[in-house]
């Protein structure tokens, strides 16, 4: 599979931003991801390039938090409540998403924002396809319940 750089840049940037919540740092990490990715050319043509790209991005984000002793923040504050949207519903959904566990937030981002397939998500998160389906359904059910409680659905 070939990778469209333009498209993947935006997706990896979104992924990094979701982790570090800082535009400049997210862009630095995105660029570092691509540099590392293309440093390992022997892997690119044989392995699973997309999963490899996301794995580098994830590890770089973890390294960033390790260096700045903010690993706890990474787990607890993937989507902070400070991203206030002008649209009420959108804000309510953001709030609901931020209440989800980090792994469910990540799976929603990969599936609905970055539009990855189930197989690709399974490779990136190193879980089975069945687990991806189960987590996705769980995340959507939790979101629905939260939004129903708040009368948004």
């Amino acid at each position, binding site marked *: 599979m*070939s990778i469209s750089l333009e498209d993947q840049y935006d997706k990896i940037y979104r992924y990094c*931003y979701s982790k570090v919540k800082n*535009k400049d740092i997210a862009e630095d990490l995105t660029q570092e991801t691509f*540099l590392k990715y*293309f440093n390992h050319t022997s892997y690119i043509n044989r392995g699973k390039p997309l999963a490899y790209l996301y794995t580098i991005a994830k590890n770089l984000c973890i390294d960033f938090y390790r260096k700045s002793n903010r690993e706890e923040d990474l787990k607890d504050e993937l989507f902070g409540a400070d991203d206030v949207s002008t649209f009420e519903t*959108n804000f309510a959904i953001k709030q609901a998403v931020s209440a989800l566990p980090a792994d469910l937030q990540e799976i929603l981002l990969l599936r609905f*924002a970055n539009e990855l397939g189930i197989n690709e998500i399974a490779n990136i998160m190193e879980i089975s396809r069945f687990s991806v389906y189960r987590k996705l359904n769980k995340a959507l059910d939790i979101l*629905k319940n939260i939004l129903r409680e708040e009368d948004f*659905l």
Partner: protein
Amino acid sequence: MRNNLKKELKSVFDVPPPTRKNQFLSQLNYPKTSRMDFIISQLGYIRKRTWILSMLLFIGILDGLYFYKVSNSFIWVVSSILPFISLSSISEIVKSTTYNMKELEMSCKYNFLQICLVRLGVLGATNFMLLIGILILFVGKTDYSFIRLGLYITTPYLLNCYGSLYVINRLKTRMIMYVCCGVTAFVSVLNTLLTIQINEIYTEMYWLFWPMSFIILLLLSAREIVKLIRKMEELQWNLSLTA
């Protein structure tokens, strides 16, 4: 409800736009796909039946050459069958031009024209090698020279190429493949009838007929290929999806 939620979820993950993207990507040094990689990747998208049909014909002719006596009738049989090889190649062009194929979408790093030309080139080279192979095997078994035998065998093939390309360039229907099949059948039957009806067709009496037909058909086919290329240049990706 669930579908609306899924749509909303996309905007939930909206982020501020990256500011250094273009600068970074323009300076990024990454391994680019070579032309050979591109050609090899396109080989896989040519349908198996095209390869199988070519192989079957080749094996069939080999079988004929070694187990049966080669005569004039064998030449017209081979030259009547060969248009079907070009039909299988034509079907690949029809597939690419009539439908916006997934494989072409996947290769959108290259434009439509480049992809089609590579595939035409691959199929053309395969057919050419097949023809040369058949001719080399034939020459030793008949009294005709290499060039003369080549003219007898390739002229009906060229007539079919011209007819099919003429149809592709002028018709805009998804039934185009059936019309091409009709053209091939017509060429094959015409070749058979001509060689049966005119006994001296492979003799000196008709010596001028073959090279002239060959040159005329070659020029006409080249003109149709140029037309096809110009037509492809006008095509845009996802034309049928946006219409």
